[in-house]
């Protein structure tokens, strides 16, 4: 589904922060991406999201070499990937419902066609009572679940989550993890970037460990 081959990346004229990364994210797989702070986890997620070009190496996304894809086609590929940020990136002037519906709105869908699905998903993530609330009044966990719901609403084939449990207490972290596992059970490949060992110990999943720009895989 996503394949990296000898991928390297440096910012500006600085040192290479990702070196010779070679791995595949198989369809329907579940993996943790971990490593110390500043190891390049977010950068790697951005590479997977096609938001950043590698300095060298080959990235194939959905069987296509991304270096050969016209810039105008990239949004179409990104739509097959959901992404959740540690800092949520919600729009404060839109309600929980409108934030979650945003991906469908940018795809040009009519509101009547997705209203029921959005409300159902919000209930599924436990925000059924908070649909008309603006993000500034939501708690950290609620914001995180809104961001996750937004990433899931168009049923992505891959979900990339950057420290999704970084701002929540352990019970909420467990609840969110169950949400990702449930999603994975429905066929979505999940990559969770985290350095929360406790979270990783709860699931027997592949671990991708970034250290000094190199990646080690533990199946």
């Amino acid at each position, binding site marked *: 589904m996503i394949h990296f081959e000898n991928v390297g990346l440096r910012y*500006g004229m600085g040192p290479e922060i990702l070196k010779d990364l070679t791995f595949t994210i198989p369809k329907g797989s579940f993996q943790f991406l971990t490593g110390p702070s*500043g190891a390049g*986890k977010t950068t790697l997620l951005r590479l997977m999201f096609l938001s950043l*070009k590698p300095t060298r190496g080959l990235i194939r996304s959905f069987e296509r070499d991304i270096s050969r894809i016209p810039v105008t086609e990239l949004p179409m590929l*990104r739509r097959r990937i959901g992404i959740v*940020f540690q800092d949520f990136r919600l729009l404060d002037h839109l309600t929980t419902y409108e934030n979650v519906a*945003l991906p469908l709105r940018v795809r040009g869908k009519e509101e009547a066609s997705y209203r029921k*699905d959005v409300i159902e998903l919000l209930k599924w993530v436990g925000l059924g009572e908070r649909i008309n609330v603006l993000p500034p009044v939501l708690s950290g966990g609620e914001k995180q679940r809104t961001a996750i719901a937004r990433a899931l609403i168009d049923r992505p084939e891959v979900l990339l989550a950057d420290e999704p449990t970084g701002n929540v207490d352990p019970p909420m972290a467990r609840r969110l993890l169950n949400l990702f596992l449930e999603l994975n059970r429905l066929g979505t490949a999940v990559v969770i970037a985290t350095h929360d060992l406790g979270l990783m110990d709860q699931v027997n999943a592949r671990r991708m460990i970034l250290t000094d720009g190199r990646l080690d895989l533990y199946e």
Partner: protein
Amino acid sequence: MSDRPAPTQAGSGQANAARRREMQVRPTGPILPPSNIQGNALMVVIAIMAFLACLTLGGVSMVRATASSWQSQISREVTIQIKPDEKLDMEKSLARARDIALTFVGTKEGRILDDEATARLLEPWLGAGLKLDELPVPRLVVITIDESNPPDFTAMRAMLQDEIPQASLDDHRTWVDRLVSMADTTVLIGMGVLGLVFTAMVLTVVFATRGALSGNRHIVEVLHFVGAEGRFVASEFQKHFLKISLKGSAAGGLAAASVFAGLSLWQRHAVATPESDQATALFGQFTIGFSGYMGVFATMIVIALITTLTARFTVMRTIAEIDSIRSDPARIDGLANG
């Protein structure tokens, strides 16, 4: 997500009703936040630009109408002037000149200015009580012509010269040419002012759009991460600026139209007062007519379109720049490291 767990059922009818109320969502708000201070300032700038553009357009149309009315009045008549000569019987020559002119197709009637009328014409320079017999004063024949089918002035001039060497024909061409040239110059100046106004407006909108993009950069980023295309983002900004420009240009256009309507009304009600006469002498009639008001309306639409298109192109270009910076690791200025 068909196998998502079903929502918990509420225990009572009252609780269900309360829940249904909560499930109602508000009408979807715009992706860009509604107007802010910057938007209001831009609206005022567009209103002023629209006001100036419409005022210029109305002014040009007014000058053209006045010049055209003068031109029509002047070209309705030609004058034959006969200079006095010892050998010439003036009265006979005047009658002959009139008859020659009236033989041409396109002339309507001929009128010899009698001594009294000639004396009245010269009164400002030579004073009252002038005796024309004592001075070698040229005499005039005024010929009214059909404006839509004017006579052949060259042939008329040649024939008059042959028959009466002291006669000369003045078809007022010099005056008409000057008026046409004045009207053309005014139109050119008006177009220049309009061009400057539109250029200033386009530049203002470019700056405002870049400012709005910069102020809403977080929204552009979120839209990028939810898979929005550049076109979609541009159309959102375009909608935002269309609303602002429509309001601004409507306000400016209506203000300009009100100025013309107000002045025209004042001129009509203040006929024969010194102020009104002075204004009429300087600017002509303030009426710009139906076509003038249509011009004002068209200017409002053009301004709204220019603003919207400028915003669209600016957004498309800026989004491409943002995408390029964001995706290029060699450009570390726009990055969030991880």
